[in-house]
């Protein structure tokens, strides 16, 4: 029955290389997130095209507060700087700077959420509006969820890094990658939802 020896002894390996699983897992998550946001924007553009082709304005009844949405964009890209600063400080074993960078990262994420709430309050979009409401809240709400996940990720990274594993910066690198991707994703959302409307 057996086509070979019962067990075959292969030579033992050298110590395995660092695996960077968190960074790679985050990268795969970003790939999935790109398809999520890209797919939702594609649906948005489809509906916008239908409305515009019918000779109407998209959106018809709402004024978009571009200052707030522009600030949200700047906030996210600035946030990336602080996330990268956390990686840099972690690599140098600088606990105080790592904590400060992560703290500012978290505050900026909260600022984004606050600004989004401001946009909601100012625009007063009715979710049951004929064609715009559901689209607007689904799209921006998903982006809000993406930032909220990043905020949780920041807290986890802070616990990990500040609890004695400062120089293991893989989690911090993953966090920075996530925020870079979030900023890129919001750039697309900002352009489609708030600029081209």
């Amino acid at each position: 029955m057996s086509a070979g020896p019962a067990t075959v002894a292969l030579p033992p390996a050298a110590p395995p290389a660092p695996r960077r699983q968190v960074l790679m897992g985050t990268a795969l998550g970003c790939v999935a997130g790109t398809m999520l946001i890209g797919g939702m924007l594609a649906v948005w553009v489809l509906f916008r095209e239908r409305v515009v082709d019918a000779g109407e304005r998209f959106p018809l009844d709402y004024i978009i507060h571009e200052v707030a949405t522009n600030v949200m964009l700047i906030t996210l890209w600035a946030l990336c700087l602080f996330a990268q600063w956390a990686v840099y400080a972690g690599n140098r074993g600088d606990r105080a700077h790592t904590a400060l960078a992560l703290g500012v990262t978290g505050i900026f994420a909260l600022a984004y959420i606050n600004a989004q709430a401001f946009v909601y309050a100012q625009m007063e979009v009715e979710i049951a509006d004929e064609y715009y409401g559901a689209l607007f809240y689904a799209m921006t709400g998903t982006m809000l969820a993406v930032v909220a996940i990043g905020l949780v990720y920041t807290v986890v990274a802070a616990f990990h890094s500040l609890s004695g594993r400062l120089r293991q910066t893989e989690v911090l690198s993953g966090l920075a990658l996530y925020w870079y991707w979030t900023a890129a994703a919001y750039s697309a959302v900002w352009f489609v939802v708030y600029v081209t409307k």
Partner: protein
Amino acid sequence: MTTIDTHPDDSVAAASAGGATVPSFFTAAGDWATTTDHKKIGRLSTGFGMLVLLAAAIVALLLDVERLGDPGAFIDTGAQLQLIQMYRIGLVVGGIAPLALGLAVAVVPLQLGARQIAFPRVALTGFYAWLGGTALVMVSLGLNGGAGGGDADMVDLFLTGLGLAILGLCATAGSLGTTILTTRAPGMTMRRMPVFAWSSLIGAIATLLVLPVLFGVLVYLYVDHRLGSQANFMGVEGIGAWIGWAFTVPTVIVFAIPAVGFAAEQFSVAFKTRQPMRGVLFAGIALIGVTAYAGATQQFVHDVTFDTSGETFIRGAAPFVLFSGLPLLGVTVVLLLALVNAKDGARNNPSVRAPFVFGVLGLLLVGAGIAANFVEGITDLELVDPATNTATSFEEGATLLVVYGAALALLGGLVYWAPKLWGRLLADKQVLPLALLGALGTVLAGAPLIVAGFLDQIGGYPASQAEVDRIMTVADDADIWITLSLVGQGIMVLTLLAFAGLLLKPSDGREVDANPYGGQTVEWGTPSPAPDHNYDHVATVASAEPLFAARTADTADTDTAADTEGSAQ
């Protein structure tokens, strides 16, 4: 090692400590429910996936009986909309997806020489999310939910459950992909990884490319249906049109990719050869993965007109070749290399065992399904009406060939790796008939529907009761084909039941060889069953077929260095 992994040494210690006592039922149940052992997570996923696939086949059988009788005589007309959705969702999200991902989760870390899967708790959470989501989908469908459902709350529950199941599958795919990219044994370059592991990587990435698009659509649908005006997505009757693409070809081909990889790997094992043109084979499998974009962009039909200007021709031909042609080219490459492999090894006293038969039959059937997907995309054949996007039963036939064909190959995978996962060897004389029976069932279930598609038998994922009525009405001269499909579904039910019975049958307690099939990859260097921690010592891999190389070194000392250091470096 990350903060959220269980340290391998902990697993070793736990295994050692628990080995002396027999756990109670509750201890064992708790151990399974909270396990971080990838083999157990994979077994849970494949087990429940098979269960849902079996349920889907039974529902399909009942629907075919109803279709052949008077309307409403066997199944109440009002329940048919939900039953068809149970069948289609059960086939794909409930069946083949967890079966493929589950087998990969159970086996791939072993194949990579890894002691753990990456993010084991994410993989376990993914399984629970999929299980809970699938259960919610089935409950909501049972209570008048789903696309076109009459109960608004159940429609919302349906969308939530489907979203949850998709998140679970994505989590599992993410864990699997990270494992393959980061935990390979030292020396195992990407080109040296086993073919099944490579196909699992392609399948995992394709899953992560396709399912988030569906999730985004579900978010829109939920917000629109629950809180919005339902103007954009046409309310409950629009749901089917927006999500139906996920439960048919070409999207389902994504979940068949690991099955193709398993079948390709079996040729080297059966014919006792090294895989020829390994890079070309990997490229072929990757080409099948292009189908992910076809699913995500919903490119079903293509207007390719020769009688026009160059630009118009290119606009039609480019997506057709890209989305329908490349997957077909990929599976053709795999089949051709399998033939080359067989030719090379014809003098090696080939060992045709049950897993090989499962794999070959599965590969041929999946290939037939991909070819059918190619044909379906030709507009002139009118197999999909581009104006109404109404599919004929050709689409269902192609989907069945892919899904059941892949399931057959994956069952072969369970047979092949049963020594490592269960510590038992399934006798060829017991499982070989099931391979043949399953292939017969797949052909009978799928091929007649393809023929019926040419007779304008309506099929597809229904969005409303009106569409259900059209689907359930048998076209002229299509009775015989529907009857044959019914017989095929019945045979598949029997096959799945018999296979589950074999797996659940108590072991006879006999010890199993470490490598009963003559496998060439590193997992066959561990004892059977594989221990919790997989490997005491992580091996250095210096060849794409390390056990083949080691056996060669045992039988002849010549060229040992070349084998172990490998030319695929």
